[in-house]
């Protein structure tokens, strides 16, 4: 199971673009990269998942370089409500035992 490394915390300001990078040097061929968001007293919420190159949805973009040893979650024009913990997970999407790290605590300031 691939282990991930993320910054413990980050802060930014409203209206800015925020990029959170995750390292996963031992990612396997069948592994996908998935990001979740968690607010206090709530369960994590799925944000985005990708395998290679770039994936974009209505809330975020995920950039994955060719070697797939890292990935970057990009949040465009953040607001105060984006303050949360963001988790990067790596694993086969049919694998039931993904490892959750401590995540990145993102604080958005006015």
């Amino acid at each position, binding site marked *: 199971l691939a282990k991930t490394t993320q910054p413990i915390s980050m802060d930014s300001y409203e209206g800015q673009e925020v990029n959170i990078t995750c390292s996963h040097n031992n990612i396997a061929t069948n592994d*996908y990269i998935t990001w979740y968001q968690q607010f206090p007293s709530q*369960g*994590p919420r799925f944000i985005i*998942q990708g395998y290679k190159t770039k994936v974009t949805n209505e809330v975020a973009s995920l950039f994955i370089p060719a070697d797939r040893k890292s990935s970057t979650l990009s949040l465009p024009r953040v607001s105060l409500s984006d303050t949360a913990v963001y988790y990067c997970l790596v694993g086969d999407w049919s694998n*039931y*035992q993904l*490892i*959750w790290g*401590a995540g990145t605590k993102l604080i958005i300031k006015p």
Partner: protein
Amino acid sequence: IAGITQAPTSQILAAGRRMTLRCTQDMRHNAMYWYRQDLGLGLRLIHYSNTAGTTGKGEVPDGYSVSRANTDDFPLTLASAVPSQTSVYFCASSDSNTAGNGYTFGSGTRLTVV
């Protein structure tokens, strides 16, 4: 609204007592999971179920048991609670046959064992 329902929302339990945390999903997902989350840490998998009728052990299964009698329900039982089981418990589900959807989580049960 489709999703996962967990009950109770919170509970204070005396050590040594038996407790079952309930989890129900209405998305017909084949896989379900129980996680615990301790303060400031990520989630740790307790037990999982690939499909109705099967269960498996996760990272921290000791002191917990599960059953999966049907697709929708996945209860977690603490046979004899201990203070170290004080935690927030999250139930989740996924359609393991479809990439790109990730896990859907419930709102959690905050359990305090005293």
